[in-house]
């Protein structure tokens, strides 16, 4: 296979996964607005059925708000063991088609079917088969997106939800991306989208008009990725090895840093960044890594794992500053600092988890 071969990527995304499982298992819930999550004062919606979504109920919404938008909303406590079981079922279906499966969560995955054993079967037909098998084995519907890279495949699966199948063929990518608002792009979150809007970038077309230099100046390394996706280019491979993501932030300083106070000052906004990212996505990590690049580009990292997921910021800060402190006194100027939180887990899956002391 040469590098110019057009890849065939499928993105499969279960429709309103947790809520659909609940409706499947309890006929009384079918056709009704259902929210999986806690109904109590501080509860949060983990997933909403399509009936609930028509009322504006969304996942990660406070249960109180959801109830206001949809007063007859039915709250169901989550059963993660069941969801994991269904997830394993669909995973077995994916494995029949390719070894290149990259799960993103319990209910979505990328598949690279470029080298499918029967070259005469199109990726679209494979996606159809997978959808049918999921329906037969689990009674649930999934949406599939087919395209030549991950970015487009994900956009495509979202395009005809629920129970959809959409294909973006080579040559159609740029045109497809053009009219979409930047907030719909995978990898552009709410904060980034707002920042883009302020810069006058609202759609894919607006984004494509920007130079790479401009995007990198405003968005750092991610600017390069935005430049690519505006052109519907995404070379990221489907990575079956990918475990859970990590969340990191780093910064190259205008002047090299030397003193402990300067270093701490430099690390603080990065810690805030990472913490906000995780909090907003309702995930938490267990391992903290601090990265230091010196003026001569020598790079070192130090990491430490807590016994259980880190749930409060002061503990995260203590670990990060502690790692930084272990590097004092620095032998030479520091040009870059970075901090990463890894071994991430969704907070919703932590229920019933015994927390551990901070040492």
């Amino acid at each position, binding site marked *: 296979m040469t590098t110019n071969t057009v890849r065939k990527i499928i993105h499969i995304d279960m429709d309103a996964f947790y809520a659909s499982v609940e409706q499947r298992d309890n006929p009384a819930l079918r056709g009704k607005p259902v929210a999986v999550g806690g109904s109590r004062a501080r509860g949060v919606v983990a997933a909403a059925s399509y009936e609930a979504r028509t009322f504006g109920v969304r996942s990660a919404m406070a249960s109180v708000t959801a109830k206001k938008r949809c007063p007859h909303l039915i709250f169901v406590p989550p059963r993660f063991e069941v969801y994991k079981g269904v997830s394993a079922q669909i995973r077995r279906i994916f494995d029949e088609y390719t070894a290149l499966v990259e799960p993103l969560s319990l209910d979505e995955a990328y598949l690279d079917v470029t080298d499918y054993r029967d070259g005469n079967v199109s990726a679209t037909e494979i996606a159809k088969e997978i959808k049918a098998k999921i329906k037969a084995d689990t009674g649930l519907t999934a949406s599939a997106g087919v395209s030549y890279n991950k970015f487009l495949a994900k956009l495509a699966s979202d395009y005809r939800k629920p129970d959809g199948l959409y294909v973006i063929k080579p040559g159609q990518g740029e045109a497809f991306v053009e009219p979409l608002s930047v907030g719909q792009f995978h990898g552009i979150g709410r904060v980034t989208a707002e920042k883009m809007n302020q810069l006058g970038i609202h759609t894919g077309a607006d984004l494509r008009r920007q130079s790479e230099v401009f995007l990198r100046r405003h968005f750092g390394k991610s600017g390069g990725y935005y430049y690519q996706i505006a052109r519907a280019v995404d070379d990221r491979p489907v990575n079956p090895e990918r475990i859970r993501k990590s969340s990191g932030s780093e910064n190259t300083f205008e002047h090299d840093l030397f003193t402990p106070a300067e270093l701490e000052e430099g690390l603080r906004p990065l810690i805030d960044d990472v913490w906000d990212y995780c909090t907003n996505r309702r995930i938490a990590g267990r391992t903290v890594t601090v990265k230091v690049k010196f003026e001569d580009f020598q790079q070192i990292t130090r990491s430490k794992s807590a016994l259980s997921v880190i749930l409060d910021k002061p503990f995260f800060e203590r670990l990060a500053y502690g790692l930084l402190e272990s590097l004092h006194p620095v032998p030479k100027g520091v040009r870059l600092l970075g901090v990463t939180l890894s071994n991430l887990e969704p907070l919703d899956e932590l229920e019933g988890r015994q927390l*551990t002391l901070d040492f």
Partner: protein
Amino acid sequence: MKFIVSSSVLLKNLSHINGVVATNPIVPILENFLFKIDSNDEGGVLTVTASDLQTTMTTQIPVEATESGAIAIPAKLLLDTLRSLPEQPITFNIDTETFGTQILTDNGRYKLAGENPIDFPKIPAVNKNLSVEISSDALASAINNTVFATSTDDLRPAMTGVYLQLSEDQATFVATDGHRLIRYRRTDIQTSANTSMIIPRKALQLLKSSLPDNLTVRAEFSQSNASFSFGPTQLICRLIDERFPDYENAIPTKNPNVLTIGRTDLLTTLKRIMIYANRTTHQIRLSLKGNALTLSAEDLDYANEANEKLLCDFEGEPMEIGFNAKLLAEMLSNMHAKMISIQMSAPNRAGIMVPADKDENEDILMLVMPVMLNTYA
């Protein structure tokens, strides 16, 4: 070589130290008791040693003997024999060439294959840096209050023992398994110098079961060993050579939400509620609002649920927090105060249990980490 001893006295003394003998020791000789007989003008003394290499216990028993000598005798065989014999003086007849041992009793004679006493490991000497006298009651209470919270996880060896910090004005015993932590302080144990060490769980459990009431225990500590002597008995153990976690920093100091309640009221309610908790997580929920504490549990798999409301004294913002009911019940059972307080800050931070009224000589703090509730975070 020959000696005569009361069967019941021997049994009682061997039972005290028998806990040390491992069932499948690395060195087979450790399945034996080491008997050492010193004859003197008044008759003689039998010194018995049991060891698992980490912990060694010895005890002394008066016997009638005309010769001195030593022998290693299979511990289980001997104890089983003594347990089934009626009380009487019994005679040990030992062939020092073959180590064959005969026990002569009114009921009959029993022959055991002994072993060469030379093979029995030497008892480590404690080159004492520090010695302190502790009343057996204070020591027993310190062990009882802490040892249950030690970890059994061999991957974190520091936590498999109790951390002992000695200073001029108090002794602090700390145990933790990562989910809970007990800090127990006594002001009636004082030393001339500051020192700290980690004493293995097994040694403390053995000590606990053999400590008599109302006696002075002489504790001696070196860099690598600790020794506890009381009456005719001595326990020597190797210390855990690890750094104990920085426990003081793990105890949160700002805990604005304080629940004060009768200990037995809470415990009896908890025992009823926990029947309905999930069998793997043992999760129960404490809801605090005004002067009411609601305890509830649910097991979604079986659709079981229970809740009870208790009157209490609560200062702070209304809150909900989850705990493992088993841990909480164990802590409450180990507290003795009539009224206890639980200090808390947030549903993902430790709860700290202390007696509402302080005892004169002791100060106890029990910390427990919560279990995540679905409504939080």
